[in-house]
């Protein structure tokens, strides 16, 4: 049938000696696989959409919980007196706590925006470096192939 075992070696030798195609693969070197891994690892939702952060935004202001209780009659009046007494002591502390939570939410926001921006920037840089490396490898190939 004319199929000699040496055929495979001939083909490998031919492929190795053939000049590189402009659109062909880089034969001598390719960028590290870690690029793909790194890029894939970064495909995560932005920190700004984090569920805990969203909850903090929805709940940091607990002013509504500090309103005096309603209710008619003596029982309602007693509840309001009790509320006034408690708030006389704890009011300033609770107000401070609410402000603290608000500032905390804003600080977490700032950090999330900064982290997301850094991540996007890192991805852009990685993509650019990878692109340059592929170009460089192709250039080396062309030079090697004469």
């Amino acid at each position: 049938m004319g199929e000699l075992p040496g055929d495979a070696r001939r083909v490998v030798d031919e492929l190795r000696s053939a000049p590189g195609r402009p659109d062909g693969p880089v034969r001598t070197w390719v960028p590290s696989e870690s690029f793909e891994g790194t890029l894939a690892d970064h495909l995560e939702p932005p920190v700004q959409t984090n569920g805990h952060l969203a909850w903090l935004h929805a709940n940091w202001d607990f002013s509504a919980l500090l309103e005096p209780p309603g209710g008619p009659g003596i029982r309602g009046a007693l509840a309001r007196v009790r509320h006034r007494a408690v708030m006389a002591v704890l009011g300033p502390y609770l107000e401070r706590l609410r402000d603290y939570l608000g500032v905390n939410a804003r600080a977490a926001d700032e950090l999330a925006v900064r982290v997301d921006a850094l991540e996007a920037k890192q991805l852009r840089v990685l993509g650019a470096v990878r692109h340059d490396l592929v170009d460089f490898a192709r250039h080396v190939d062309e030079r090697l192939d004469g």
Partner: protein
Amino acid sequence: MGSPPPREHTGADREAVAGVPVDRRLVSGAARLPRVAIVAAAWSPGEEERQAAVRALAGALALSAEVVVVSLDDRSGPSAPASRRTDGIFTVHSVAATPGRAELARRIGEALSAGGPGRPLPELAAERLLGIEGRAAPGAVAMLDALEPHAVLLAGVETLWLASALSGARRRSRLAVMPLLGADPRLAAGALGRLLGAADVVLALSRTEASLLQAGGGAAAVRRLALPVAINEEAAATPLDGMSSFGPYLLVLSGWPDDGAAGGAGPPHDYVRAVLGDVAVAEVRRGGWFVSDGRHRFEFPFEGTRVNLWRLMAGAIAMLDVRPIGPVGREVVESLGFGTPVVVPAGTVAAEHAEASGGGLWYEGPGEMLEAARYFIERPSERERFSRAGRRWAAGEHATRGGFAAEVAALLLG
């Protein structure tokens, strides 16, 4: 070295002396077949190539001998007594052993191969690496003494330290060694040669392994065994559901068998597609198989069994094997058996198969791999020629079971 005649096994006195349990069915006098003890780092029915090779050899040997396995896999502590279990026709004695550090040895070996993969290692480094990978198990020597086998087969680099422990005055059995190192440069090291010098016969599973062993010297008789590799050709007639909507595809084998370990990423799947253009790529990797043609991506919901792997293999334009290749190159032989050309790393047992069969190409780097794949995509008639050559070679070289059993028996029993 001459081999003694088969001994009759008489009983419990040996058990008392050695302090290890001995299978009473085998020492009762009913067993008259010569006994062969196979020492291996592990014994399990998994897909791991080295273990599968040892099991195949044990199965062949069981036709003419009583096969007892001594597995260096007990982690309950060095002073723990050996445990015994039955696995089909085999009795398996698990003895306590230090854990092997194969991964560390592999990484150091790669780092030291400054001349490139497959280049010889410095002598001292090779010796130390053999030590790192070995699984010291003092109980194994006592166990072998108690079993009084006609022949001992040391399977795997983890067991080779026993070659010197069993030599000299203690030597009562025929000793065979099967390093299972494939194209590992340590095979050519003098340190290994000295260990193998004590063996009556050294078994290699490929020409590459045999020639490296001979280059190292020391090994008296190196014999190559072509391991039978069975495939179910029906798999070719039943492609995996969903594949028909993808058209011609390349198969990339990057994580098989799936041992649950981390990593396993092969060449970037998208990169393969970006370079080769309009062809689908199916990838068998750890943690899941998938196929993609750029427009669609399909995660296989099927179990990652060997039969499903065969189905993928049988329908592919070519199989690109990007894993570290073992001593057998089993999946490469299977692919050739299905008539699917292979593209495999150069300098490995798989490359030996590709060249000997005329059924595949080999590569030094990722670029060459992709050009070889492109060769099969763009030249259907050449692909067909490679396919026929590979199929014929696999059927002739790796499909014979009867001859293999007789050959193994002759080598082990003398």
